[in-house]
């Protein structure tokens, strides 16, 4: 392996583990120190630690992509650190370590960068909050968990950090713990994802049983190509589906939970109850892309050994993309619109993985998916932080309270516009390039998926610009607030992200991240991208007509009745409530509690009463409370006599 020269120190195990442990350290420092000590410096400590992480990750990324990771055969997987943490049996052990490959390196870069932006933004956004220390410590915990997740060498290590991501999102969503909605949303997020994690766990168990390993590299090696492990896992079937397919579908359910895929998406829109910068972190770089990352990590197994499971991935993804986009068109809460747009965009990434093949030309979908993950992180963070500025300024989430804000918030306006253009897929903004690759991959493999995706792209442009116009145009009798952009710590991240939203589309992704590690030459066809661009522009135009200026058109459309099911999010929440409250609670939990109280307890009480009655008769020997003992003494004696009689024949 070709080691870099300058970077030897950084590239040591110590340097690599530091990437993960800086945020953990700041979590400990901020979380465990007393309530009052260095509250002032909370944001400073948080930012410094994450800055250090970011710098280290950039160095690692440079080092990996240009020096040590690159070989003639494409990029290699480097297990930089691996130690045995928990030994289950001779062959199966839970190792903890750091695995460097193109996707994990890309992810540590994205996670640390977005997290850094969010940390900086929060310094302004949360500066009046009394519990800012706790806030920053949770934020650091979140970053730590996500970094640990992406560098996992072992599927169980991933599960550990997966759960930690879940709990840190729980803590952050429920940060305003006195608000019942926030508490309920946090609970919902945790329980829904926990339910999905059950699938992940059982999937891990099946995989571990057949491959006799938990290590990613070994699993992929053993479950692809001809091997006894693969054969045994395909030979066994349950309900007509092979064990391996079950395992991969179950693992995908885990991923779908975190990535908010239908029908496990219900937690994400509610998760906006947390502070807005947290939403940016959840939506852009951390929690929701975990599922995409999980599928990408096990992609060779999905693609080479089990195409059926990959089809499930593809259809879930494309359905969710469309479904969420429809709902997004009707929401009036700025963060909810963004939440549904995230679900829809993650759907793009997921189906793009689902339709992809392994290696070479057919692996375009994989590359496009990772590319979209990368660009989406930038513009989605920008959208949420922009929304944060707006909410901070207006003190409301509802678009009806906004309008004409371009005058008061000129910088935010511009940044938000860039992000909207990017997500709609207008060149030269980053989203255009990644979405074009996804659509091309879809065109090459499945036309139905392509047309659904194209329609979704139209909806995306429509609802994003609907949001944009309603916030920044749509002149209202302007509220008398003066023009006042926010604190500089809130503006700087916006500007940085805006610049990146423009330029990240030009990253030659095919040279860096592909399904098999070999270079995939870019497939940019201008002729192909004409249609998506036209579609996106059509969406924007429609929005402009309807929402740019205040008019009666929207009211005249009278779509209320038609759109009611969409506006109510297709009643998915209600269905869940029905299942949990009515079915699980009434039909399982209540009978269980009743059975325990009346049948089992009843039996014990009855035998107690019986002893009471019997002992009434021999009461002369004993005083009140010890009657039970008395009877047991007598009974015991009789039993013992019988037993001894039996023993000695």
């Amino acid at each position, binding site marked *: 392996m070709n080691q870099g020269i300058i970077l030897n120190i950084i590239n040591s195990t110590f340097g690599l583990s530091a990437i993960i442990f800086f945020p953990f350290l700041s979590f400990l420092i901020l979380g465990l120190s007393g309530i009052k000590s260095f509250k002032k410096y909370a944001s400073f400590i948080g930012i410094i630690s994450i800055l250090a992480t970011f710098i280290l990750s950039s160095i690692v990324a440079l080092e990996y992509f240009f020096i040590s990771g690159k070989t003639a055969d494409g990029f290699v997987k480097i297990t930089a650190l691996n130690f045995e943490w*928990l*030994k289950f049996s001779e062959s199966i052990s839970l190792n903890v370590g750091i695995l460097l490959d193109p996707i994990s390196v890309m992810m540590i870069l994205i996670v640390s960068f977005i997290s850094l932006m969010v940390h900086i933004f929060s310094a302004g956004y949360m500066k009046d909050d009394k519990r800012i220390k706790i806030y920053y410590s949770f934020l650091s915990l979140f970053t730590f968990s996500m970094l640990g997740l992406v560098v996992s060498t072992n599927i169980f290590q991933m599960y550990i950090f997966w759960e930690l991501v879940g709990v840190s999102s729980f803590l952050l969503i429920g940060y305003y713990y006195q608000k019942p909605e926030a*508490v309920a949303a946090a609970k919902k997020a945790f329980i829904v994802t926990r339910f999905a994690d059950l699938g992940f766990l059982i999937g891990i*168990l099946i995989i571990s049983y057949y491959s006799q390993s938990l290590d990613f590299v070994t699993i992929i090696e053993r479950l692809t190509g001809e091997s006894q492990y693969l054969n045994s896992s395909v030979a066994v079937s349950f309900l007509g589906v092979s064990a391996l397919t079950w395992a991969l579908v179950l693992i995908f359910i885990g991923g779908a939970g975190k990535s908010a895929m239908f029908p496990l998406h219900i937690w994400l829109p509610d998760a906006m109850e947390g502070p807005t910068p947290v939403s940016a972190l959840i939506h852009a770089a951390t929690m929701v892309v975990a599922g995409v990352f999980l599928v990408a990590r096990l992609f060779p197994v999905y693609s080479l050994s089990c195409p059926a499971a990959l089809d499930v991935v593809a259809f879930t993804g494309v359905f969710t993309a469309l479904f969420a986009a429809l709902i997004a068109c009707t929401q009036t809460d700025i963060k909810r619109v963004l939440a549904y747009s995230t679900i829809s965009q993650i759907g793009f990434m997921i189906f793009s993985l689902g339709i992809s093949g392994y290696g070479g030309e057919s692996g375009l979908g994989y590359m496009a998916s990772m590319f979209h993950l990368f660009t989406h992180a930038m513009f989605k963070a920008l959208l949420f932080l922009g929304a944060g500025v707006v909410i901070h300024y207006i003190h409301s989430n509802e678009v009806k309270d906004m309008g004409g804000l371009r005058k008061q918030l000129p910088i935010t306006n511009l940044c938000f516009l860039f992000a909207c253009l990017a997500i709609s897929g207008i060149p030269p903004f980053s989203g255009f390039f990644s979405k074009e690759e996804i659509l091309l991959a879809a065109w090459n493999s499945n036309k139905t998926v392509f047309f659904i995706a194209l329609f979704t792209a139209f909806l995306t442009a429509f609802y994003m610009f609907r949001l944009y116009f309603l916030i920044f145009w749509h002149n209202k009798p302007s509220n008398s607030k003066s023009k006042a952009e926010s604190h500089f710590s809130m503006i700087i991240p916006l500007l940085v992200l805006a610049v990146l939203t423009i330029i990240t589309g030009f990253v030659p992704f095919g040279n860096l991240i592909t399904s098999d590690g070999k270079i995939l030459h870019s497939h940019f066809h201008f002729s192909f991208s004409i249609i998506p661009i036209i579609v996106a522009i059509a969406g924007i135009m429609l929005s402009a007509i309807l929402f740019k200026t205040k008019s009666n058109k929207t009211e005249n459309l009278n779509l209320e009745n038609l759109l009611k099911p969409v506006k109510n999010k297709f009643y998915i929440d209600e269905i869940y409530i029905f299942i949990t409250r009515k079915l699980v609670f009434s039909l399982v939990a209540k009978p269980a509690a009743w059975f325990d109280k009346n049948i089992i307890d009843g039996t*014990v009480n009855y035998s107690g009463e019986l002893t009471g009655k019997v002992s009434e008769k021999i009461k002369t020997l004993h005083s009140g409370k010890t009657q039970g003992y008395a009877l047991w003494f007598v009974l015991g004696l009789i039993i013992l006599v019988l037993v001894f009689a039996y023993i000695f024949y």
Partner: protein
Amino acid sequence: MIDKLSLLILIPLFTALLMLFAKDKLLIKRIALAGAVLQMFYSILLIVSFINSERSSQFLFVKSISWYKTLNIDFISGIDGISVSMILLTSIVVLAGVLVSWDINERVKDYFLLLSLLSIGAYGFFISLDLFVMFFFLELAVIPKYLLIAIWGSGKKEYSAMKLALLLMTGSALILIGILLIYFRCETQTFNIVKLAEVGIPVELQRISFPLIFTGFGIFTALFPFHTWVPDGHSSAPTAASMFLAGISMKLGGYGCLRAAAYLMPQATVEYSKIIVLLSVIAIFYGAFATLMQKDLKYMNAYSSVSHCGFILLGIGMLNHTSINGAVIQMISHGLMTALFFASIGMIYKRTHTRKIDELGGIIKSMPFIGSTFIIAGLCSLGLPGFSGFVAEMTIFIGAWQNEGMFYKVSTIIACASIVITAVYILRASAKAITGKVAKEEFENLKDADFNEKSASVLLIIAILLIGFTPFLLINLINQDTFIISENFFKIITSK
């Protein structure tokens, strides 16, 4: 005369004697605390010297004192990795229990004497290698429980105390019959565990005495359907007694099942294993659902103990090395976690005078420490990585899944599913009771934990995190001894 292990019993005994002569309430508490601290340090010393000694035989520091010559009963003490870790668990819970009992003002001397008696019983139980002596110490630990609940308890305490005593006595009776059978039916005529393991108990005899002994100890560890003493007993007990009950007493049962039943009678364990798995899965799943409907924090935790202790028996029933490791870790993990839970519930009750989930709300605002402690205990209970519960449950799951056959797979999946339900009831309770809107005005000005309470919580939390972050330490300690047990099973299964 005095060897390393007898000293373990002598420390609490000596503490109790000192307390007898003390008059002042504060002095009594101080003696109790000093005794508890001493016990903990001594247990740590014991572990250190255990690790440093060479494992020449299965049990270390073996010492035999003749107790009752004609019946061949000896006081044989000795420890292996499993018992030494149980001893440390006991000492930690005892210390935490003494710390949270600081504000007991009624019959102080009796209270702390009973606590000492309980710990003598537990230590004696864990170190003895003689079935009869083991039984003796087990009984020694039952009686104080009855009194602790009946005198210092709350709610329907007489009823609960009686129920607990009745069920545990039934368990004891079963155990007694079982070990007497072994004694009289075996040619060796001995209660000595080492000797019995060497000679082996005839299979026909195992088939009779295994169910007796396993059920007997099982009752202590909430074996379905003999678990009903758990909710009432735990809920009526004073805080420290609940901690001892769930943290130590239930572990006496688990340890007994492992040492006296599974280790001595492997053939029968293999034969009955499906029944064990079935009952424990029922306890796990059904316990979790019953927990879901509880409205009282203590009842909630007590029912969740039924569910969690099911994992111990499940680990034993799954018969392989990994799952038995998991069972031992679960014993320790559950002991610590549930003690922490009861401690925090006790602190909440002391201040708000209610344990009803509906009546509480938003108490973390005025009591950040107690609220956080409750949430930490909850997170451990729902098996979050970083805490001990995760390590234990995952080890059991991985072990359980390695068994061939649909029955074991389905059981494992059901057991896995329980962790989702656990998340639901833990989060429901903490969302309503700990966070959310402040339910009553007087909850705005509650006093947070005092120094003793904080020390108790921190002690338990550190232990939980230590296992959660460095599980290999505990695994290394117990690995060799669980291997001996699982190897017995393995030979029997493969020879079939």
